[in-house]
């Protein structure tokens, strides 16, 4: 077995025991990247040299007996909407194709402090808008399980990087399912923490009230270790919550006593593939066999989730993306008549279709005379969705269900059907609207060999419980140990 197929915990103990050095470890992942990246296309930028020098620094410090961070020497990839000082941060957009931020995002600072090795920036749907990474203006990412299929999105590059073992860990962002859905498509663990658990400072905003940074890993324990580094208060983000961060990686192995698992019957109604439904039913049976109580819960307002999401997310996006006007940074059209024309031409050239579609939707929803019936009404329904969850979590610890209605779809299959594409997020969106944490863990394969994800949701700031519940399932199954061969 090559180094790059080990779990994060195995890598950590190998480094500590001196079985291999951080440089050797990093080099073996860089080798994997040079072998497989051409087929996968997970990265927009690979920082091989700086990764090796970070690894060498870790080795030197370990040699001299220094106390090292919890992710010392572990390679991590970052979604390319997370600002890295001195390294391009493009959001997979023509608009920011050559944008180099002068500062690090909060989580980049934390990863550096934890001595992680930052190997590169991964592909995404432009400005994180999409569910297949096909909206990237700068590259195509393929699903390592079937190169004709998408990795999901918008964090498709980060999910594919871990699935193809190009990095053991990666970081994504989740606005409506953008971590959990590609994790499900790529057969890896992906987690969206509670809104406010991880600082958004330096995450290029798509929809500010929904965006949340989270981890990808090959297993639950890896995700726990990475979340432990990402999470925590940051006074530069007013929405970041000041609560202590539990040691997730320590508690994750402890099974939960008397676990109550909620099941939403509507999740198995229309639109779901039978192969997905049967895998999830089987997963629920695993919990029953572990002594968990299975409880039916109702989330009556979740059916409005997609509509509410597209109003709120697009409204905020229309405002967040207004700054890309060609005046201060980013793409500026080379020919224009006057100032207004400069704005129009720069934005017309810099943004792709999906981004434009959402900006127009958002501008419309916020317009005078319309905001009451769209934006403000959506905020009210959002509150009802949260109330449903609050009521449900009085009776259950976690809610289990499918992450996505289908396994990964083919590249190009849905590009002309945005509405169908939006429905890929039907099970994940509610967690963003409610601000609660969610995780997707590998829970099976379709007959065609495509991964299927189990989604678990928990009450706000119950990440610890969520990880422990996920690990209980993972321990009983071997889906996460499968590695795509290509």
């Amino acid at each position, binding site marked *: 077995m090559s180094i790059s197929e080990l779990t994060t915990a195995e890598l950590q103990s190998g480094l500590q025991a001196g079985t291999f050095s951080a440089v050797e470890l990093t080099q073996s992942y860089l080798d994997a990247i040079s072998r497989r990246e051409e087929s996968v296309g997970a990265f927009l930028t690979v920082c091989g040299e700086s990764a090796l020098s970070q690894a060498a620094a870790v080795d030197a410090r370990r040699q001299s007996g220094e106390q090292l961070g919890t992710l010392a020497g572990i390679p991590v990839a970052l979604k390319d*909407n*997370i*600002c890295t000082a001195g390294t391009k*941060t493009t*959001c997979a957009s023509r608009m*920011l194709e050559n*944008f180099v*931020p*002068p*500062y690090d*995002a909060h989580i980049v600072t934390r990863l550096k402090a934890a001595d992680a090795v930052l190997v590169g920036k991964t592909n995404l749907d432009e400005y994180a808008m999409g569910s297949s990474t096909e909206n990237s203006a700068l590259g195509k990412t393929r699903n390592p399980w079937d190169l004709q299929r998408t990795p999901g999105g918008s964090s498709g590059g980060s999910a594919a990087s871990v699935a193809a073992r190009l990095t053991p860990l990666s970081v994504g962002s989740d606005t409506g399912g953008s971590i959990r859905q590609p994790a499900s498509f790529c057969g890896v663990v992906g987690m969206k923490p509670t809104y406010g658990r991880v600082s*958004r*400072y*330096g*995450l*290029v*905003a798509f*929809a*500010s*009230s929904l965006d949340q940074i989270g981890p990808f890993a090959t297993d639950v324990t890896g995700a726990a270790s990475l979340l432990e580094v990402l999470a925590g208060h940051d*006074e*530069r*983000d*007013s*929405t970041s919550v000041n609560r202590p961060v539990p040691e997730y990686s320590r508690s994750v192995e402890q099974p939960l006593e008397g676990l109550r698992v909620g099941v939403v019957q509507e999740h198995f109604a229309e639109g779901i593939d039978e192969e997905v439904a049967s895998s999830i039913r089987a997963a629920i049976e695993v919990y029953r066999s572990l002594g968990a109580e299975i409880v039916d819960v109702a989330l009556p307002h979740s059916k409005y989730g997609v509509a509410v999401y597209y109003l709120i997310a697009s*409204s*905020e996006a*229309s*405002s967040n993306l*207004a*700054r890309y*006007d060609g*005046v*201060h*940074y980013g793409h500026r059209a080379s020919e224009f008549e006057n*100032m*207004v024309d400069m*704005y129009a031409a720069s934005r017309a050239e810099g943004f792709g279709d999906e981004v434009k579609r959402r900006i127009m939707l958002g*501008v419309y929803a*916020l*317009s*005078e005379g319309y*905001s009451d019936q769209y*934006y403000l009404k959506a905020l009210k329904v959002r509150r009802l969705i949260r109330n449903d969850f609050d009521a449900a979590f009085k009776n259950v610890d976690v809610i289990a269900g499918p992450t996505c209605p289908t396994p990964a779809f083919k590249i190009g299959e849905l590009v002309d059907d945005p509405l169908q594409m939006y429905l890929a997020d039907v099970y994940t969106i509610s967690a963003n609207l409610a601000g609660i944490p969610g995780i997707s863990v590998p829970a099976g394969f379709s007959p065609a060999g495509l991964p299927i994800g189990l989604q678990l949701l928990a009450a706000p700031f119950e990440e610890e419980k969520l990880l422990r519940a996920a690990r209980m399932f993972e321990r009983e199954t071997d889906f996460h140990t499968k590695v795509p061969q290509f």
Partner: protein
Amino acid sequence: MDYTTIIGLEVHVQLLTKSKIFCGCANLFNPDNPNVQTCPVCLGLPGSLPVMNRKAFQLSVKTGLALNCDIASFTKWDRKQYYYPDLPKAYQISQFDLPFSADGWVDIEVPSTGETRRVRLIRAHLEEDAGKNIHDESGRGADSRVDLNRTGTPLLEIVTQPDIRSAEEARIFLEDLRLMLRYLAVSDCEMQEGSLRCDANVNLHVEENGETIPTPIVEIKNLNSFRGVEAAIEHELKKQVKAWQTDPRRMGEVPKTTVGWDANRNATFEQRGKEEAADYRYFPDPDLCPVTITQEEVDEIRSTICELPGVRRTRYVSELGLTPYDAGVIVDQGAEFASYFDEVCVTCGDGKQAANWVTQDVQRELNERKLEIGEFPVSAPVLGAVLKKVVDGELTIKSGREVFATLLSDAGDGTRISAERIDAIIADKGLGKEQDTGKIDAVIQAVLDRNAAVAEDVRNGRMQAVGPLIGQVMRELKGADAKDVRQMILDKLQG
């Protein structure tokens, strides 16, 4: 033509905080070094997030309270969205439907009518200032530049009801507002530097055939001097009266126009008309939490408000017996000057005496030395102690002035002097008022004996001859009161 002038003002005030409203950059007027007081937040770089400066909020609440506004216990931030190069995020963080304060008022005294006018305030809200576009004015069509040093300066917007009835009232309102804001130390209100800016909405209510007809509103933008405010409104009013007389239009018949003011040409100029009403697509800023403030916090802020100019002026007249003019002179010099006066007054126990010295001697010295009152070497307790001796009759006014002058020259190197120096100066120079009438009498007798001819002149009624006699006595008796000496000489010669 019978009409009433209707004026409403929108005033923008930059707050005196150390740092900007949503980031840690310095809040300083710095036009010569563009784009140095910036960071990812105020540059609006991707991924940056705002964090509210609580100090700016507290200064705003303080101002709201001084303006007699109600303070909202819950307020929030909204994005006002529009494109302009000096607005790097393409939205301004402002307050839309829930401003932190509303429903206030300011009373102004109008000398020309002798009346008090109450100007009601609709609201005061807090927002971030934009940057500055710098255009090529040479006509060579060079690129415009953008300076973002000012971006994110905390800005208070104060909106009045249309309660102002003349250009003079508008100027007085602004002058009073500036004085109040300076007393509160919330803004330096330098109109030239743009830390106090004003827009005026002007129209007429014409009375015709028992009907009141409002004329179209004209908004005059970016008035940046008190003279400009008065002149621009005056100019606009004349134009509107003439317009009514030649081509009468009611409000609503033509769209609201926006004009600028050219102080050099003394004329307004039409700004590019907005094709349609702007839709700013306000919505709550998801990056910022709503702000709550408790009654205790409001009370605590209220307790930091000093005595404001209007109250002070009234107290000086009614309690200290100052003339309204003197009271005004002292109050208009600012809070520090007025506090100096107050302290002198309390120490010496005589408001009029204190007012005379502070408005004449102290002010003259400040002007000559180009000093602020805070830098003045003779502190209020020291001046108060000198004046106490004058009030108590231990020192003549003349000797008092000499002590004052000596204190000042002693402080030539800029050191502050203590009250202990006073007695030493008086002793050194023999300035203590001579109380021993026997001694004075003896000196007078000696002088008269030496100047028998002059004394004879006085005896014969040539009163101007008494001056030199007084002078000789005073040279020998420094601490004597010249008035007393004169009386004693006359008593001797004519008695």
